[in-house]
Structure formats: structure tokens, C-alpha cells
């Protein structure tokens, strides 16, 4: 039995809620600007490129590339036993998302490796967008 206290709190700002609801329903969607087509992350009120407030929640393709990674040897958060790693992934749509690698980690070079999206439930708390090596 797990609940949200077994895992780190999310930041649930005004614009974040729909993203987490879509994840719950099985899709990683980000706001795509209706005026210029730019994807944005984290969610927000206007497009960072053109300031248009009009956007559509649009499913991302799920492909990306590892920009960087780090391994925690000191733990601070519930639900994460050390050592564990985090990655910064550049989505093919443009935004960078911080996430984790599911399954096998790269043996040597991480940076530049292609990855693909997997949705991972964290107990009953929430669903995380994570990545596996492509």
C-alpha cells in the first residue's frame, strides 16, 4: 500500500494539473502553442516564444536524447534509495525534461544516447514520464 507520502511531492501549480491528469490517463502531453507550434515545459500561461495564450495539450512522440546525468549518493527524498541516477533528456519536440532511466542504464557514455518514453506508476500516487534506452 503506498500513497503520495511514500514519494516526493509534485509541484502542482495552476498550469501543471492537466499534465498530471493526462499522465494518469496514459499520455504524456505538453502544451503546444497554437500560434507558433512551440512546445513548452513546465506548463505555463503563455508561449515562451511568442507570448500567445492559445495552446493545445498535445501528446509528445516519446523520443529524445540524453543531455546529461548525475548519480545521487546522498538521499533526501522518499521513494529513492541511493545510489540512483537522474537524466536530463532533450525531447525531439524541443523541451528538456528531467527524468530517470527505466531498466538497463548505459554501460559507459550516457550523453547523446537515444531514449524513448515509458510511463511508470509510482504506487497509487502519480504516473511519471520516464525513459528507456532506445
Amino acid at each position, binding site marked *: 500500500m503506498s500513497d503520495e507520502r511514500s*514519494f*516526493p*511531492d*509534485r*509541484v502542482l501549480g495552476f498550469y501543471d494539473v492537466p499534465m498530471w491528469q493526462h499522465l494518469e490517463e496514459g499520455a504524456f502531453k505538453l502544451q503546444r502553442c497554437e500560434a507558433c507550434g512551440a512546445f513548452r*515545459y*513546465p506548463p505555463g500561461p503563455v508561449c*515562451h516564444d511568442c507570448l500567445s495564450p492559445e495552446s493545445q495539450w498535445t501528446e509528445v512522440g516519446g523520443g529524445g536524447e540524453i*543531455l*546529461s*546525468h*548525475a*548519480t*545521487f*549518493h*546522498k538521499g*533526501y*527524498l522518499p*521513494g*529513492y534509495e541511493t*545510489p*540512483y541516477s*537522474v537524466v*536530463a533528456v532533450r525531447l525531439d519536440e524541443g*523541451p*528538456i*525534461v*528531467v*527524468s*530517470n532511466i527505466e531498466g538497463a542504464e548505459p554501460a559507459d557514455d550516457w*550523453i547523446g544516447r537515444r531514449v524513448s518514453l515509458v510511463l511508470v506508476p*509510482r504506487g497509487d500516487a*502519480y504516473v*511519471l514520464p*520516464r525513459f528507456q534506452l532506445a
Partner: protein
Amino acid sequence: MGRATGPRRTAAIVGIGHTDWSGDWTRVRNGDVPADSTGYAALAFREALADAGLGRDDVDGLICGPTTALERMGELLNINPSWGDQGDAIGAVMKAVQAVEAGLVDVVALVYGNNQRSAGTQYGGPKAMGGGSFLSYVYHAPWGLTSQGALYALMFQRYQHVYGFTEADLGEVAVAQRAFADLNENAIMQGRPITIDDYLEAPYVCEPLHLYDYCLVNDGGVALIVAEAERARQISEHPVYIEAMGRSDLNTNATSLEPRLTDFYHPAQHRVAEKVFAEASVGPEDIDVLQVYDSFSVHIPLALEGYGYCKVGEAGRFFQEQGIGPGGALPTNTGGGHLSETYMQGWNHQVESVRQLRGQAGARQVEDCRYVHYSSDVAGKVASIIYAR
């Protein structure tokens, strides 16, 4: 309307004061609690007033750091100023200069106190300090990313990959600053020198960063007295002038770490370098001492490259061939910095800048020190001051 070019020299630091950082380090580790944040600030203020040879009533402006409330600080010091404000270390100095230039004040007290060690302030985890100001400090917690150190670990990992920098190269920072601390009777880590092997053998906190890449967390206070230039010359035999100042912020996609992971803050540093070196009519080659806000050692190579002390990607070679420690070509964080002197969130760097320019830095004094450059680039908000005699 912009100001005329040429050195600013409208205001100067005429007083410095601080608490007993190493004594309080020992006391707090032994379970004693010497003061709270306001107490440390008040003690430092007394020292700074005495150093300037001023009385409390000479002060007509008050700025306090982010860790104490402005009204309570003013109440405790019993100052009813013509003007008051709050700011981090570099922001406080820049605001004081602006207030002087605007004719609002003549003599400003800048006071800072922090009981972060005895109060158990958290810099990682669910209650991470700074999350209210910087969304990136808390937003990625569901994926296990927390602590400012981890953000610099991600940044440094990619920097290593792009430029072929190594962990041993980075270790030069911690070793050099510890060597300076050994020459500083105020430094918490005096008497505890380290080698590159010590550095590499120390545990990772967030890999690729080792223990010695992280700043200390300790209690203490710092105060500065800034005066209008003419008053400064009456007050002090050795005023330290604010020669130039500038700032450039990187906010585009900051929460998703874009400024850290793509250009390593360099675009903002280039812009600030252009501004402050032109204003002070000097170049990097004229700087005698570099002071860098060093919550993590990673700030130092980034600053060297971003401000043009060496080419981008060549900081590692600069460390080896030129040197940033005692006797090096570019003495950097000469008091030991946050890594080895005291973590006063940039305030101790102002004290050390003044000591070097006054010629009061004892065994670590840099000969004929004329120009000191202080830079802060926390979360890609890049700001610099050039100080001169």
C-alpha cells in the same frame, strides 16, 4: 539616459565586520547555539562600525540580507534610515551604490546574519531552501532531483563531456582554496590542507561532484558600511571603491535547466564582462584577485571562461599552467571562499576583497593588489562588481 563611461567611483566600502566563523563552527558542532540570524548580523554590524570609526547615528541607510526581516533588523540596531532595502550580497552592494547615486543616502549599513547550521536549514529534499525563488530547486523532486549541488552535478557532467574537463581538473579548485584558507586565521578550514588525491578519494555526494566540491554550511554574520565617495575619503584612509557593476540574467527555460546545460551561463557572463571591464577601463589581465560565489567549485571554471580569463574549454589547462591558488597567476577566492573559509552567501567575498585592496590580508596578501573582480552567477543570474583602491 546612460551615465558617462569611465570608472564609477561614486561610492566606497569604508567598514567591514564579521563574526567569529571558526569559533562558532566549533561551538555549533559541540551543540551550543551562540545566536540567531539577527544576533550574528548585529554583532557583525558593531564590528563594521568600529572598523569605519563611525557611530550608529552616522548611518542613514540600511540594507539587510535575505535571511532577516528588514524592520526587525532596523529595530534591533535602532536605525530609522532615510532609505531601506533587502538583497543578497551582490544585490545589496549594487543597491547601496544606486541609492547613493540617487542622492537618497550618504552612509549605508549592509548587514547579514545566518544561523543555517544551528537551525538545520535544508538545501535538498522536500523543504529545500530557495524553492520559492527558483522553481528548478523543487520542480523535479518526483524524479528524485533535488539539492542545488545536483543541478551543478548535471551541469558539470555535460561540461566535462563537451570540453574534455576531468574530475582531477575540478579538484584543483578545492585544493587551491583550501591552501588559501590555511593562510587565513578566520577560515574554518585553516590547518586542514588537502591534496588532489584527498579530493578524488572523498565520497561523491551527487556524482560527478565530490564532498570537497560543496560549500560549508555554518553560522555567522557579515556587515559592510558603504559611503558616498566624498564622505568615504573623510571617513577612511583606504576606501575601496565600486569601480564598475553589471548584471545579466538567463531566464529562458531556466526551470528545465537550459541555461545550465547548453551554454553553462557563458552568454550572460560575456555580457557582464563586456560591461564591467569597459566601465572600469580594465581587462581581465589587470585583475589582481578574482572572487567567485562558490556554493560549488564548478562556479570557478565557468567564471574563468565566461569572463575571458581564459578561452572557453581551457579552464583545466589554466589551473595547471597559470594557477588560481597562492602564488598563482590569478589568485581566486583568496580567503578560502565558501568551500573553506565560511559560507556567508557571498558576503565574506566582499570582506576579503576589501582586505586585499587595503593590504590587510596578512600571509595571503596578493602583492600590490589594485583591482578585485567579484562575480556571482547563482542559477544563471550573473552579476559582477569590480573593486579598486
